[in-house]
């Protein structure tokens, strides 16, 4: 094979490729994940879960479990009712059962919690709990659930007589209807973005330790948002916030799965309070897949209007959004469908309108969702599929149709038809570059030749506009908490530094990237900068890492704090050099006197001076530190152009992704190696969702994706060797211009893969996942509905 190995580079002082600071512990097996934690006297928890999707609880008999010699406590909903914790607020203005008291509403719902001396005994004791259920009709199909007369799932809500959650719309309906009425061409397509799961390799879990002497509760937890968790524990459980410490240690992948508060966490806390011992709870894989935050489950009806020449004029979409048994979508926007109204995508339209209806079903609640930036994934899939459907209708090349309609550079900042203000972009350049890397014209020629021979080759394109960096308080909060993030930068006397973050890493490499942000501002080598994160006792407040918000929000906070340190360093340097601050010039790592570069002080000398005996001007305090709370004025809008090339076996429907070209623009790249890694991972996600992943249900409400034998994830064999390209368009409103990259590829890649497969087989639409069976059925003209098991 061709070697891509380059000589090791020196560590940059600032932005640039550098090896990750966190890697030495991971490659030695010395990571510190939640399940690695062992505390003296620690007990183990296990959750008893409902076997039925919908049933009334007649009785729960825990006596045999309690009699088990190694069991220390058995907790049921009744126990929690005494603490007012049987139900907790969801993150979407609903309530969520911690342990079921009245009914179970999805298969896998939490019913009881056992605390025992060891893992295996806790599981044994679950078998000893007798639950008598009165089965009720399961409501599995969102389309049936919304109909009048459907069995009511949420009869816990006073006066509830249906399964309706919300109706929400955005855009100008009248203007859109007018555009459609006048349109020369209208294409309509129904499509499902099926329920998928983040499935991080580490499942969710916690260790709770209530110290009865000090009254301090420490929770080590698989959380992407430790500060938000702490505040919610304080608000919901009435625990004093200063007596709660939430620690998010090394996290084995999050992808949105670890944003919310799960019943197991709450039960671990209660278990520790009841027993006086630390309690560890780690869910198994089936529990993770069946009960924790899923993603998507959007039934979409799209319409696109255009002229015969291929100028897109309007988009209209209706969505039925399946939110499962509790509306626990952990998204911070004030819009029930998150950022879905960015479905106008990357195109210059006259009008657009969407209407989304949320519905309860007897499925697991959710979902923040899986690297989706709050429904952007669904929105991008919708528009990119509709554009391909239109291209088919017009007989136009999908690249040409996109190029004709993409927003132009001079239109930015651009206010889209549903109100978002896109910050910056050069869209045609990104698509041109992707086509250049792909050798687009040559691929089309090859495809034509193969078609003559009866071989199925497909080329799929997607162009996406992401919206990340949540977010401005006007549009976003979590239970009233605004989304500003804090950061603190402190330079020690010897010129080494520490930066404390409100966000934390689940693998994104914060310990390296954030050191580089400080290094770029102060000229201190990244290896001399300690990055502290994931511990509420040691970091400033902020709402955590999800929705690609770490670099856009916390990265800005860190950059501004470091700039403030530099401003102070200027004053200290001026005192040391006995010149006016205005006479100093900054060169990365030192201040020097204008016109006399030899008269200078390095940042390390300044740090020592700031802690020393230098006479500082009146009103200037010593030491060298600063903080910042960054309140983002707008979101950031990364974008990209993706091209996927597939070969499909006509006889079996098996899809082979031959090539995948991804051109991303996330603004300046702090560490290009890490950025590429983020993109690679998202592309694999996209291939997985497009071809393999789905959590379907049978008509009895049984979850059919409850293990990795059923919920298929892409391996090294399904993934091609990704081909990346980039353009760089800084965000004009961000202190260092960066836009975020964590989810771009997950958002952008599924439609490229689907468009490629459908291009290969010459079918206008078939729902994901495009398994061999689904592709084969699509070729016969009878694609399946993928969210339900067929008879």
């Amino acid at each position, binding site marked *: 094979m061709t070697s891509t190995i380059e000589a090791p580079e020196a560590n940059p002082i600032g932005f640039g490729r550098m090896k990750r600071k966190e890697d030495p512990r991971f490659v030695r097996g010395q990571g510190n994940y939640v399940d690695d934690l062992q505390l003296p006297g620690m007990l183990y928890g296990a959750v008893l879960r409902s076997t039925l999707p919908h049933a009334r609880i007649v009785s729960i008999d825990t006596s045999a479990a309690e009699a088990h010699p190694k069991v220390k406590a058995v907790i049921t909903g009744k126990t929690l009712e005494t603490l007012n914790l049987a139900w907790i607020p969801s993150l979407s203005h609903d309530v969520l059962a911690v342990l079921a008291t009245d009914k179970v509403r999805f298969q896998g719902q939490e019913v009881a919690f056992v605390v025992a001396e060891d893992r295996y005994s806790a599981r044994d004791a679950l078998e000893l709990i007798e639950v008598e259920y009165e089965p009720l009709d399961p409501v599995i199909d969102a389309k049936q659930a919304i109909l009048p007369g459907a069995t009511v799932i949420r009869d816990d809500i006073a006066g509830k007589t249906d399964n309706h959650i919300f109706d929400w719309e955005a855009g100008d309906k009248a203007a859109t209807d007018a555009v459609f009425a006048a349109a020369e061409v209208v294409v309509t397509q129904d499509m499902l973005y099926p329920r998928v799961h983040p499935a991080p390799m580490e499942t969710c879990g916690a260790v709770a330790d209530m110290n009865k002497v000090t009254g301090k509760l420490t929770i080590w937890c698989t959380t992407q948002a430790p500060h938000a968790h702490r505040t919610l524990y304080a608000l919901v459980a009435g625990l004093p916030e200063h007596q709660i410490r939430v620690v998010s240690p090394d996290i084995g*992948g999050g992808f949105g799965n670890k944003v919310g508060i799960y019943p197991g966490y709450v039960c671990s806390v209660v278990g520790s309070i009841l027993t006086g011992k630390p309690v560890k709870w780690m869910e198994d894989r089936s529990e993770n897949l069946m009960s924790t935050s899923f993603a998507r489950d959007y039934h979409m009806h799209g319409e696109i209007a255009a002229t015969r020449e291929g100028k897109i004029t309007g988009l209209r979409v209706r969505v039925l959004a399946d939110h499962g048994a509790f509306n626990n979508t952990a998204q911070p926007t004030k819009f029930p469908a998150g950022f879905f109204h960015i479905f106008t995508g990357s195109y210059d339209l006259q009008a657009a309108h969407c209407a989304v209806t949320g519905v309860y079903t007897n499925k697991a609640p959710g979902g923040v969702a899986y690297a989706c930036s709050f429904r952007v994934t669904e929105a991008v899939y919708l528009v990119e599929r509709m554009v391909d459907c239109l291209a088919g209708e017009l007989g136009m090349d999908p690249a040409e149709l996109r190029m004709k309609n993409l927003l132009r550079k001079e239109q930015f900042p651009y206010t889209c038809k549903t109100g978002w203000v896109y910050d910056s972009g050069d869209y045609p350049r990104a698509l041109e570059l992707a086509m250049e890397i792909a050798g687009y014209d040559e691929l089309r020629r090859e495809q034509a030749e193969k078609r003559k021979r009866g071989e199925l080759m497909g080329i799929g394109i997607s162009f996406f506009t992401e919206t990340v960096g949540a977010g401005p308080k006007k549009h976003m909060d979590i239970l009233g908490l605004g989304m500003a993030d804090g950061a603190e930068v402190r330079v020690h006397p010897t010129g080494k530094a520490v930066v404390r973050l409100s966000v934390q890493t689940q693998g994104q490499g914060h310990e390296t990237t954030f050191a580089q942000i400080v290094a770029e501002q102060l000229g201190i080598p990244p290896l001399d900068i300690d990055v502290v994160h994931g511990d509420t006792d040691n970091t400033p407040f902020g709402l955590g890492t999800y929705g690609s918000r770490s670099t856009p929000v916390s990265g800005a906070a860190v950059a501004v704090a470091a700039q403030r340190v530099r401003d102070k360093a200027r004053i200290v340097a001026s005192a040391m050099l006995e010149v006016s601050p205005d006479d100093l010039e900054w060169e990365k790592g030192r201040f020097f006197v204008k016109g006399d570069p030899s008269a200078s002080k390095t940042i390390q000398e300044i740090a020592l001076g700031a802690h020393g005996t230098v006479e500082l001007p009146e009103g200037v305090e010593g030491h060298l530190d600063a903080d910042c709370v960054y309140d983002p004025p707008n979101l950031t809008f990364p974008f990209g152009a993706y091209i996927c090339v597939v070969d499909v076996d006509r006889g079996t429907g098996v899809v082979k992704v031959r090539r995948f070209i991804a051109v991303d623009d996330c603004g300046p790249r702090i560490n290009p190696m890490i950025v590429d890694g983020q993109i690679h991972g998202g592309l694999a996600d996209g291939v997985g969702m497009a071809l393999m992943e789905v959590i379907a249900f049978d008509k009895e409400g049984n979850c059919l994706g409850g293990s990795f034998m059923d919920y298929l994830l892409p391996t090294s064999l399904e993934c091609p060797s990704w081909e990346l390209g980039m353009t760089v368009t800084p965000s004009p409103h961000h202190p260092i211009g960066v836009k975020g990259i964590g989810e771009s590829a997950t958002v952008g890649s599924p439609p490229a893969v689907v468009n490629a497969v459908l291009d290969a087989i010459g079918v206008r639409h078939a729902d994901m996942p495009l398994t061999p069976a689904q592709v084969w059925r699509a070729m016969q003209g009878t694609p399946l509905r993928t969210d339900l098991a067929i008879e």
Partner: protein
Amino acid sequence: MQVTMTVNGNEVTATIEPRLLLVHFIRDHLLLRGTHWGCDTSNCGTCVLWMDGEPVKSCTVLAAMANGREIRTVEDLERGGVLDPVQQGFIEEHGLQCGFCTPGMMMTARWLLDHNPDPSEEEIREAISGQICRCTGYKNIVSAIRWAAEHPSTTEVNA
């Protein structure tokens, strides 16, 4: 029941429940936390370690089945303060993000290189195809293993 096995060169004897999984014995009893647990069903490979020189998924091996066997885990890759080239390769080529699948991936990679010192991309992809990584999209894992193949001794880069 009592089991005796060699773990990373040290003989270990313990009294265990017959049903105890090897992954839990390694993690909870021997406190070797580099071997992870991810799925229950032998699908994810975060629990891969060596038994008698062959990679196995320790979530579906009973500790009792390891009686009299030789076990090697990720903690034994580094020798004399020098990282195995596979470990160094994962660092050099950004072959890991969250680090959870990494130990299992590296144990398979070491086995591959011991049996095929100059594997092609296809051979590497085949070798790690029984393991799942959710972060990297595999490309950099392939590069990391190629790096290790091209740097059979890491003494210099690791110095």
